[in-house]
């Protein structure tokens, strides 16, 4: 019986690693309750189309987003992550997104440093009134991730498939 565990690691962003046909990326969208989540609502109610690849999680504030969330999402199902919050100065909790901004920069740079493409994790400020912007952002992120292909780096294996 196979006992020694070897992860199936494939270095990402190799040109030959073409996505299988009909592959659609999974994007984890972590949105702040007060601006971006309301913004995504507005996008829907305004009947603006955006790709269905995004799976949205609502958090109270963008500063609720622990960098751990990003690592966890990238290691499980997500091929990319989008975190979105209020514009600077608009935070419902006054300064949450300023704190978040610092963390995001460090996390993004660190992930890039160890081998993730910088487009794998993206951030945006979307206010409750910016329905069209939200659609634009999701479009862009989806496009970016589609270009990069599926993420294979450091994935936790899916036990169900085996």
């Amino acid at each position, binding site marked *: 019986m196979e006992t020694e565990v070897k992860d199936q*690691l494939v*270095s990402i962003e190799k040109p030959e690693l073409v996505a299988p046909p009909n592959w659609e990326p999974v994007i984890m969208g972590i949105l702040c309750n007060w601006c971006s989540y309301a913004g995504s609502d507005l996008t829907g109610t305004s009947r603006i189309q955006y790709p269905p690849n995004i799976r949205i999680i609502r958090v109270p504030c963008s500063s609720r987003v622990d960098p751990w969330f990003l690592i966890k999402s990238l290691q499980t199902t997500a091929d990319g992550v989008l975190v979105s919050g209020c514009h600077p100065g608009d935070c419902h909790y006054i300064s949450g997104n300023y704190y978040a*901004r*610092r963390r995001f920069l460090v996390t993004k740079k660190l992930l890039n*440093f*160890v081998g993730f*493409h910088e487009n794998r994790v993206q951030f*945006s*400020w979307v206010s409750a009134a910016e329905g069209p912007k939200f659609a634009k952002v999701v479009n862009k992120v989806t496009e970016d991730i589609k270009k990069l292909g599926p993420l294979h780096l450091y994935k936790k294996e899916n036990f169900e498939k085996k």
Partner: protein
Amino acid sequence: MNYTKQIQEIAAKLFAEGKIDVFVGYRMNGFDDNQVPVLISGPQDISKLVFTDKSVFNLVNYLKTDHTRRKRVGLVVKGCDSRSLNLMLTESQVKRENLYVVGICCEGVVDDDGQRMQNCVECMVPDAVVYDELLGETLSGSQTLTGSKPYIVNVDIAALAEKPLTERAAYFEEVFESCIRCNACRHSCPLCYCAKCCIDQETATLYNGANTTSAAFHALMTWSLHLAGRCVDCRNCEKACPSHLPLHLLHKQNESVIFKNFQEHLAGVNPGDRGAFYKYSMQDPDDFIM
């Protein structure tokens, strides 16, 4: 750099005055010219104490063990150690009044092969920032915080940053694959004082005991992000790692990003400064956000 005599005198004085219960210092390891930490509980062992440029280990780590808890402790700190002590004080892990701190104006320590440690070459704060007593001459380069000495980006970081992404990814794959997840890095870090690490929480973490490459990635990345803006680059973790992994890469990468972008923040230099993630500025970079 040799403060053996002064430290022995200070320890003797402290024990004689009954000011401390334990003195944490260095002693010769007994087989070559390297040193190991020693916890001295009485004046009889004071002759063991030494301090030279081989005094590498960060002794602040001992403030989180059973042997020093709720005791009055005397300890020796170099520049980097004192910064971690500063953070522990700020984060209310130790009480200042229980400590007698012998600060050293450090000229840099050397590793087992006699080479000056890389973190000492790049050190910005060689003098102890917390002390009751300061030994040695304050070095001219130490007033660097305002920029008289430029920040040196770690050589390995600079070299790696220039490589293409795939090469970096391959390099780090090897790093994470070589990790055996003994958690020595965590245990030897003075700032990892949590009673139970979030990585070991059965319900919160992605991995529960599996010892795979992706689990190592998960653990080390989480760990380095928890220390981002707090790591003082004492390299205790690297000394402890049985796989000799270049763990400083993760920390120095964070440190360089933080120093460059967040008003030249250096962890633990100012008393009361909890770290880069506990404050913000309107001028923080925003260009990476859509």
